[in-house]
C-alpha cells in the first residue's frame, strides 16, 4: 500500500511539473521496504512508470511520433525517435532507483538487518 502511495505521489508530482519526485518516491520505497533486492527495482519501476504514464497520455492525446523524431533530431540522432523516449524513461527510472538505493543504504547503516 505504501509503495503504491509513493508511486502515486511520484506520478502526481511529475504531472505537476515537479519532475524529480520519483527520487523522493524511490527513497520512500527504500525506507519502507528496506530490502535492497526488492526496494531498488521497485523504486526504479516507480520512476519509470511515473514518467511513462504521462508520456503515454501525450501519445494518446496528441501523438508522440513527430515530437520524438524532432527531439531526436535536436539531439543529433536524426530519425531515431525511440531514443528520446528511452532517455526519458531511463532518467525517470534512475531517479527512482537511486532514491531507493540511497534510502536502503542509509536504512541499513542506521538499522542493520538482523543476521
Amino acid at each position, binding site marked *: 500500500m505504501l509503495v503504491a502511495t509513493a508511486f502515486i505521489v511520484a506520478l502526481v508530482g511529475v504531472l505537476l*511539473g515537479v*519532475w524529480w519526485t520519483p527520487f523522493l518516491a524511490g527513497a520512500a520505497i527504500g525506507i519502507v521496504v528496506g530490502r535492497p533486492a526488492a526496494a531498488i527495482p521497485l523504486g526504479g519501476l516507480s520512476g519509470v512508470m511515473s514518467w511513462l504514464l504521462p508520456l503515454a497520455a501525450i501519445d494518446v492525446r496528441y501523438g508522440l511520433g513527430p515530437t520524438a523524431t524532432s527531439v531526436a533530431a535536436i539531439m543529433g540522432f536524426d530519425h531515431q525517435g525511440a531514443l528520446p523516449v528511452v532517455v526519458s524513461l531511463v532518467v525517470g527510472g534512475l531517479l527512482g532507483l537511486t532514491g531507493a538505493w540511497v534510502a536502503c543504504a542509509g536504512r541499513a547503516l542506521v538499522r542493520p538487518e538482523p543476521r
Partner: protein
Amino acid sequence: MRVRSVLNVVAALIVSGAVLYVAFFPTGPLPALGPAFNPTTGAWTMAADAVITDRSLSLPGLQQPVSVVFESNGTAHITAQTDSDLFIATGYVHARFRLFQMDLMRRQGAGRLSEIVGKAALDSDTFELQLGLLRTAQAEWNALPAGDPTRDALVAYARGVNDWIKEAESAHQLDAMFTLLGYQPQPWTPIDSLVIKGDMTQTLNFTDTPLVMALLNKSLGADLASEWFPILPPNQQSPYDPGPYSKEAPAPIQTASAVSALDDQGASALYARLAALPQGLIAQGGDSNNWAVAGTKSASGGAMLAGDPHLHLTLPAIWFQMTQDSPSYHSSGVAIPGTPGVLIGHNEHIAWSLTDAQNQQTFFYVEKEDAARPGMYFWNGTWTPYTTVSYDIPVLGEAPRHLTVKMSVHGPVISERGQTTSVWWAGNIPSQDLTVLLNINRASSWTAFRDALRGWFSPTHNFVYADDKGNIGLISAGYYPQLPAAAQPWLPMPGTGEDDVTGTIPYDDIPQAYDPPDGIIWSANQRQVTASYPYYIGTASNFFDPGYRANEIHRVLSQPGKLTAQDMQHLQTDTRDFLASEIVPVLLHSLSTRQLNSKESAAVALLQAWDYNMGVDSKAATVWWFFWQEYLHETFAPWWTSRHVKVSIGEVLDTLGQDLEAWTLNDPANRTFSAPGVGARTAAETMLAAFRLTVSKLAANHMNVAWGQVHGRVLDNLADISGLSYGPRAERGDANTPLAAGGMPSDHGPSWRMVVDWGTKTFEGVYPGGQSGNPASSWYTNRVDTWWAGGLDPMLTAQAAASSTGARTWSLKP
C-alpha cells in the same frame, strides 16, 4: 559488515549525486536531463503545442473581443475592433508560433547570443554591438512621441507577445528550444521589434564591398581592377526607369587610383574579420523579383502584381502569413515575426511587394590618428575625440566580456588592426520604417503609397505597386548617399572630412516610374537606371545584380498580347537562363569548326537541342552550368594566381561574369583572355579549353547527369539543427533564372511568392515552410510541396477563412 554498509552508502550517494547532477545541470553539450526530458514540462510539450484547436481565452490588455481564425494551412486572420487590439493579438499570435525565432533574431541584433550559446557567438555579438543595431533601435524608439500610432502599435504588439510568454510559462508551453537550451525568454519590448527590423536592414545592405575592392585594387592593379570592376555594368541590362532624368549626368568618376600598402593591410584585416562572421550579417547580393502589369496589358483588365523576395530559406521561415482587420487596417500578406504589420501584401485597394535596390549604403573611412593624441582622430582640420559607449556581453558559463565601442563622426570604429576604420552605414540612421509600413498598409492610391515611402531610408527597396484602378508603379525608396565628386566610395576613404557623405539624392530624383507607356514594370535587383542617370548609386561590383533575371522577366513581359495571373505564376518559376541563351549559341558556333571527341560531340548535341531551361531532368543544363564555371576560371584564375589576389574568386564571380559575357559577345580579343602563363588567347580558344575541361571532368566524375542530380535546394533550420532542415531536394533553376536557385545546394530563393490580379480580384501566395516553428507541428513544413511545385494558395479574407474547411477559431476576450 559495518564497513560494507558504509561503502554501500558512499556508493549510493556518489551514484545518486551523479544522477541528480546530470538531471539538474547541463553537462557538456547535454542539457539538464530532468527539465529537458520530463514529460510534463520538458521537450515533450511540443506534442501538445503542435495541436491547434478552437479556443476561448482572456488576453490582458484587450479592449474588445478579437477573433483569430486559422485556415487549415495555418494562415491567421485577426479581426479586431480597435487598432490597439489588432496589434496585441498579432503579437500574441506571432509569439505563440514563433517565439524562439523572435528571441534568436532580437538576440542576434542586440549582441546577446553568447548568453545562450556561449563564447562561440562572441565574434558575432561583438560585431553587432560595434555596428550598432541596438543603439539605432533605441534612438528610433526615443524619437517616437507619445501618442504616435507606431509607438502605440509597438507597445500593443509587445504586450501581446508578453501575454503569450506569461501564459506559456505558467502552462509549461514555452517552445521546447528554450527548455533544451535551459533559459527563459525575457519580456518583449518595442525596441526588440526595432532591432529585428535592423537585422533585416543589415542582412540586405551592410556590405564589405569597398574592402573587397581595396584588396582587388592592390593585387590586380588599378587598371585591371577598374576594367573588371567598373562603375557601370559592362553587359546589356534592363533598367526599369529609362529616364529622362532631372539632372545632367556628372563627369565620369575616375576609378583608376592606387591603394597604398597601409590601406591594403587595414582592409585585409577587416575583410578577414567580416568574412568570418556568420551567414546573414553581411549582405551578399540579393535575388528578388517583382513586377506589375497595367490594366491595359492584362487579360482581366485590372492591374496585376507579382512579387517573390529571395532570402535565406529557413525553417521556420522568415515570414508569417496573416490578415489584419481593424478600423484602420485591412491588410493581407506576410509579416516578419517580431514586427507588427504586413510587409508584403495587399489591402482593399493596393498591392505591393519589394526587392532589394542594392545601391551603396555602406562606406568605410580610414581615420587619421596620432600616437601623441590617443583617443582622437583628425577630421575637418581639428583633432576630435572619439565618443565611446560600453557594453558587458554575457557569456554562457563564463564571465561577461566588456566591450568599449569607439565612434567617429562617420560611425562606429569596427577595426583597429593595421589602421582604424570606421563605417558609415545608412542602417545606422534612425529611420521610422515601421511608420512607413503602417502608412503603406493604410494607403489607397499611388500618391499615398509614394508619400508614405518618403520616410523609408534603409534598406533601399524597389517597391512595386498595383491598384484596383489599373495603375502600376515602382519606386526605389531609401537613402542614396552622395559624396564629393573627387571621392571614391567604392574603396575605403580618408576620414579627414573631404570625402564625407554630403546628402542623398532628392526623393523626386530617385529611380521611379508610374504607369509606363508599355504597361509593364519590373525589378530584380538590377541597376534601376541607365548610364545617363546623373547620380552615383553604386558600382557594378557586388552591389547590383548582373541583370539576367531582370532581362528574362522583361523579355517575357514585353512579348505581344495580354498577360494573365497564370502567366505571372509561370514567370515566377521560369527557369530559362538568360545568360545561357546568349552564350551557348556563341559557344556552339565556336565549337563547330573544332575537332571534338565523342564525349565532346555528345555534349554539343545536348546543348544544340537545349531550350536554356535549367530543368531538373536536363543534362544540357548540367553541361552549361559547369562549362560557365570552367570558362570563368579558365579566364580569371591564372590572373588570381599570378597576382596573389587575397579575395576569393568565388566572391566576385557575379561581376566577372558580366565582364566575360560582354567580352564573349562583343570583345572576343580582350586582353584578359591572354592570362599570365597561358599565352595569347581569344574568347573562342578559352571557351574551347573550358569546354574540353568541362566534358572531361564531368565524365571522370560520372556527372554526365541531369541537373537535378547535381543541384538541389535545402531549407535550413534556423537554429542550425540539420535534422530539422528540409532537403537537399532536387531543384530546377540556377543563380540566373527568375526561379533563383544559386548554390550547390541552394539555400536562398523565393521566400514568398505572391500574385495579385485586381481584375479578377484574385490574391494568391505561398512560402516554403509553415506557420509554426514547432518541428512536431504539421504546420512546420506543410507549404513546402505547394511551393516546390510552383503552386500558390488563395489568400482568403477573414470571412472566407472562417467558413473554409478545417478552420479553427480563437476567441480572445478582454
